[in-house]
């Protein structure tokens, strides 16, 4: 009988590390790794590091290897722990606690829109309906695994529903160096193409060096339309702006992957709470990191949201 693999603390070894624009792409082989959902994360701590706590990083990709997997992380070097991770060499060892949190629930996100009076046949699985993926900076990290999962859905080994929507990726970056990170999506988009699914990709940069000159939310404003589903990951201001835009459009639902400082990642410390729309505090590591727009932001003032 095959043993059910559970989330656990495991020892991983770096097998590959390269630059991806301003970020680093770190591949870690982890024996016994339990398969993850897109949007889940792991707590990483480099063996022998002077950092006291592990840090949360989104699972960017996952390929089975033996009785485990090779995991990919996309790391923005913003402080001591992330710099240390971004500069690891093959052979380096780190502890990996995961997969953790509730990722993107594709059953829910891809569920057909409820037919409201109108001709149900026209609504069901209409190919014009899109799954709009909005990434800001290193918020691109969870989406390679999301694309791979979509491509493998409906029988491709991963338990995901058949994707009835066309993915449209909108990626915002600061400058050209950051924008080179868009390469991390390449494998995922190719796998989608091989699975007979098209996808679109548009970039925006703050300095106009690549793609659209301006915020990624401006691209979203032009692209999003009634019936779309939106998943987003990026800076809090971007997420709120995405919600501010989308909540006014009929039949658009949004999911956000959110961040907080974490100590444990498993619900022990109460450190990672954020205020929800209803005023309560929720642990990002347990309730999230992916939350619905209504849960996370609710009825926030529109102009506040769009800045």
């Amino acid at each position: 009988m095959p043993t059910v693999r559970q989330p656990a603390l495991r020892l991983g070894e770096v097998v590959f590390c390269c630059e991806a624009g301003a970020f680093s792409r770190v591949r870690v082989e982890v024996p016994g790794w339990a398969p993850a959902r897109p949007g889940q994360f792991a707590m990483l701590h480099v063996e022998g590091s002077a950092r006291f706590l592990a840090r949360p990083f989104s699972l960017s990709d996952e390929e089975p290897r033996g009785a485990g997997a090779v995991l990919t992380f996309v790391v923005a070097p913003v402080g001591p722990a992330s710099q240390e991770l971004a500069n690891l060499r093959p052979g380096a060892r780190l502890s990996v606690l995961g997969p953790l949190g509730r990722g993107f629930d594709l059953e829910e996100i891809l569920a057909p829109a409820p037919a409201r009076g109108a001709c149900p046949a026209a609504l069901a699985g209409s190919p014009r309906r899109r799954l709009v993926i909005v990434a800001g900076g290193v918020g691109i990290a969870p989406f390679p695994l999301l694309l791979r999962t979509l491509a493998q859905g409906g029988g491709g080994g991963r338990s995901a529903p058949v994707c009835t929507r066309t993915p449209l990726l909108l990626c915002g970056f600061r400058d050209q160096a950051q924008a080179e990170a868009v390469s991390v999506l390449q494998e995922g988009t190719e796998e989608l193409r091989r699975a007979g699914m098209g996808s679109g990709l548009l970039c925006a940069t703050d300095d106009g060096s690549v793609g659209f000159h301006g915020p990624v939310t401006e691209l979203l404003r032009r692209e999003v339309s009634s019936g779309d589903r939106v998943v987003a990951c990026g800076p809090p201001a971007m997420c709120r702006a995405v919600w501010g835009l989308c909540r006014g459009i009929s039949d658009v639902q949004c999911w956000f992957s959110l961040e907080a400082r974490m100590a444990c990642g498993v619900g022990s410390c109460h450190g990672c709470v954020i205020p929800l729309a209803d005023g309560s505090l929720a642990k990002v590591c347990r309730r999230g990191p992916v939350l619905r727009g209504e849960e996370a932001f609710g009825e926030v003032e529109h102009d506040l949201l769009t800045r």
Partner: protein
Amino acid sequence: MIFSPDNGALSSCLPPGTEPGGPLTTQLGPLTLAHPLINASGTFDLLEAAEVLGQEFVARPPVAAYVPKTVTLHARRGNEPPRLVETASGLMNSIGLPNQGVEEFCRHDLPRLLGLPCPLIVNVAGFTPEEYVLAVERLRWALDEALGVYGSACAASSPSAAPYVAGRDEAARPKPAWAWRVGLEVNISCPNVHSGCMSIGTDPDETFALLRALREVWPEPALLVAKLTPNVTDIQAVAEAAERGGAGALALVNTFKGLVLDPVSLRPLLGGVTGGLSGPAIKPLALRAVFEVRQRVGIPLIGIGGVETVVDVVDFLAAGASVVAVGAAGFRDPCLPARLAGELGEQLRRRSLSLAELIGVAHAAG
């Protein structure tokens, strides 16, 4: 690290020598612990860990006794975020004791925690002495109801029929049948709330009065632990007051009050403004507290503060602690206490010492 090749997990299994009755068995008042390693309150949620990492955590906890997060009389939201930030060799937190309140705790968590195969030490705090007493009374009713009372015929079926009356004869007092498996830790040391709690634990007279009052509702032989704050000039005076008041053991220390500024805005970074420092940065300070308190009191001590490696465990035991609690270092590895227990066994064998010989050895002449 304990590395089990079958699934690559850093195992949660208790290492050999740490089973009940083994050479690491240690006594904490009426509680028998299979080894001297437990968790520090608020740093390990066994029920949450079991949900995330598997029910193995409940079946075979990585601690010799489990200490849940502080419970207060009423439910609390806790402090606003951000609540955490790493600092040099440590962690600053201002969590602010969020919890569901003692009523919900007794209804929801307690029945599950009583099913654990190890003793339970419930941690209670209050904002006035009355709140401590009421919360502990509620807890005691729940325990009497679930586990029964000696010396009171009707108690097991109807605990409220045998209400405790303060000042009654010692002999007539119903004895808790659960004293050998459930203890109480009173948190008089949290620096992240604005009244009660640490303000009691910084004053020997208030500490004495509170422990006295709690002994009335939490009678002998049940374990009563006072968790002390290091944010005092003279921790020995508070420790002696707690012992005189009726504490059966002391836990030291809670976090050191501190401050972190946001590097950009230069305003306090944590939502609670100030916070409590824990982690390796505080270990020598905590070790000093255990060492000095051991010189003045006879009751068992639980050593807490920056425990990360077996060297830290050995140090706290040598300084006079009978039990050592893992706090923030357990965030990185929820099974750290079990691992350290295994390593402690090896250390004792290597030094040809028994656990009893190690405890307090730092005080021996020469």
